[in-house]
């Protein structure tokens, strides 16, 4: 049962071959046995999950069935969920029980999906290895010495280890796609504004976007059908006509024009990943696609521009953690400023402090134009690169990450080398485009290789369609780690 797709699970629930309570119990049992090794979950609450499952069983018995009714879903610990601890991987929120539901939690509750638990993540979604979590690192199910990627590392590991049928993530600079690649699963970051950010703990608001993580493109399409939609409570939510992402999955790829950015296939890319993508191109050609080279000339400045913009937004967003209204408050202070300073010094980990300080610096008097405005101008050039590329091709294909999963501890003392693991994903967030990562092979030492499809605005259906067609003729996505 742990290898069934969402569609198969829904079929079993619908025909009453299993109940939601039984299904949820079997996943809770799996979590119980594997979480000590993998640390994919920060919080599980079997009582609350099983109560929801019993309610879903009543809906199923009444025939009130939607595609996710009765199916347990792992939620990244960044989405506020009423009554659930919502820690964001931080000591600062380690005692925070959300008083309301995020928009996407409401979406899942409305269709009768089950909250299976809260997945581990880099602190405040800042990291690419899941090592910045206050609750300890997540271990990659393919190799327990390797990182799962980040920041949605717990969600990726949970799906890869069959500790959840599917999960959610958020992606500010690659946090859905990079862990999906490193754990051998499929994940999509939608167009900025497609999924509401209401109740998503903010990191960099002009870049943050929630999206699905599953074993297949089909599972991601089912989740995206539930998550996407206009929400007036998010000022940047877009009123885009609703689409059925499942319906178009099988459309033929005849005549599809795929571009390979030459800047992505340089010395920094592992030869094994380059080779996997070459083989994938052959597969896609056989499906009818045309492959051609394109150029994204401003790619090299995406990382520097991102660390200015994301840090600036983070320094502003994280001002709210002051020990007054919720979250951690230090003990023993002499006045109000001392309380703020000690609360933040003790409540935040080093990576979060680094980004707050960089953000504070680039926004400070005298530096604003040289850093913040400069980065915003580069953001425009990067978005223009993509817009020019989409005049010539329908989608862009490239690596998700320059290397397969690295070892735990390998980069944790060198922030800049950690930042470079997002070299192919960050530009997509700056432009606000949709990007999807899917499994495309394995390295010589048995670690998954992912590739990334980048689409034009609101082209999620096409990305899922290409990934689905690819998954019909390959089996990388069906491989299972031995645990």
């Amino acid at each position, binding site marked *: 049962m742990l290898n069934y797709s969402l569609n198969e699970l829904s079929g079993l629930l619908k025909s009453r071959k299993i109940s939601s309570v039984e299904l949820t119990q079997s996943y809770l049992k799996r979590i119980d046995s594997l979480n000590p090794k993998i640390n994919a979950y920060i919080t599980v609450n079997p009582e609350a999950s099983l109560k929801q499952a019993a309610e879903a069983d009543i809906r199923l018995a009444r025939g009130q069935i939607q595609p996710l009714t009765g199916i347990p879903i792992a939620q990244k610990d960044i989405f506020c969920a009423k009554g659930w601890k919502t820690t964001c991987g931080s000591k600062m929120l380690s005692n925070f029980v959300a008083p309301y539901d995020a928009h996407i939690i409401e979406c899942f509750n409305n269709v009768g999906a089950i909250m299976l638990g809260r997945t581990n993540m880099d602190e405040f979604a800042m990291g690419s290895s899941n090592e910045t979590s206050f609750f300890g690192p997540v271990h990659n199910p393919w190799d327990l010495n390797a990182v799962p990627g980040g920041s949605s590392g717990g969600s990726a590991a949970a799906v890869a280890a069959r500790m959840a049928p599917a999960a959610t993530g958020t992606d500010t600079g690659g946090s859905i796609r990079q862990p999906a690649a490193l754990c051998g699963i499929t994940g999509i970051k939608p167009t900025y*504004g497609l999924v509401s950010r209401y109740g998503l703990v903010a990191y960099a608001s002009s870049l943050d976007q929630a999206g699905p993580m599953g074993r297949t493109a089909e599972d991601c399409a089912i989740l995206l059908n539930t998550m996407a939609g206009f929400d007036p409570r998010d000022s940047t939510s877009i009123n885009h006509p609703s689409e059925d992402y499942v319906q178009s999955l099988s459309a033929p790829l005849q005549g599809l024009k795929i571009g390979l950015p030459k800047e992505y296939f340089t010395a920094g890319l592992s030869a094994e990943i380059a080779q996997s993508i070459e083989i994938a191109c052959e597969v896609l050609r056989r499906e009818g696609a045309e492959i051609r080279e394109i150029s994204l000339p401003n790619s090299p400045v995406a990382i520097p521009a991102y660390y200015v913009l994301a840090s600036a937004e983070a320094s502003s967003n994280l001002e709210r953690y*002051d020990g007054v209204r919720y979250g951690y408050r230090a003990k023993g*202070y002499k006045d109000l400023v001392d309380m703020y300073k000690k609360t933040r010094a003790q409540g935040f980990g080093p990576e979060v402090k680094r980004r707050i300080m960089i953000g504070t610096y680039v926004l400070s008097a005298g530096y604003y134009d040289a850093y913040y405005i400069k980065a915003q101008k580069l953001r425009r050039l990067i978005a223009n690169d993509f817009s020019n590329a989409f005049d010539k091709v329908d989608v862009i294909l490239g690596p998700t990450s320059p290397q397969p999963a690295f070892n735990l501890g390998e980069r944790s003392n060198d922030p800049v080398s950690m930042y470079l693991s997002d070299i192919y994903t960050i530009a997509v967030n700056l432009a606000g485009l949709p990007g999807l990562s899917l499994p495309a092979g394995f390295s010589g030492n048995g670690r998954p290789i992912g590739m990334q499809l980048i689409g034009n605005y609101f082209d999620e259906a096409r990305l899922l369609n290409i990934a689905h067609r690819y998954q019909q003729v390959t089996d990388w996505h069906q491989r299972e780690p031995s645990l």
Partner: protein
Amino acid sequence: MSLTSNDVHKIAHLARIAVNNSPDDTEQDEISTWLAQLNNILSLIEQMQATETNDVEPMAHAHNLKLRLREDCITETDHREEFQAIAPEVEAGLYLVPKVIE
């Protein structure tokens, strides 16, 4: 350009982050760790300067959005008790902080 220890002190103060809260760390050690790491990040950021951006319009956001207006009516209900139940210190419906006015 690189930061000095004084700059790090100033930035940490602006960001309201205490730099010496752990009894086994001397303040100087913590500052020098921050200094090295922040300077590394800033030299990564300096790579921006290599690209010419005269006449480029800054981009704040992926979409050309206008902020929406809504009807001027009450949409929020009262959640004071729930919200204050998770606060570190409250009294009589107020959040308590150390005295700020002598």
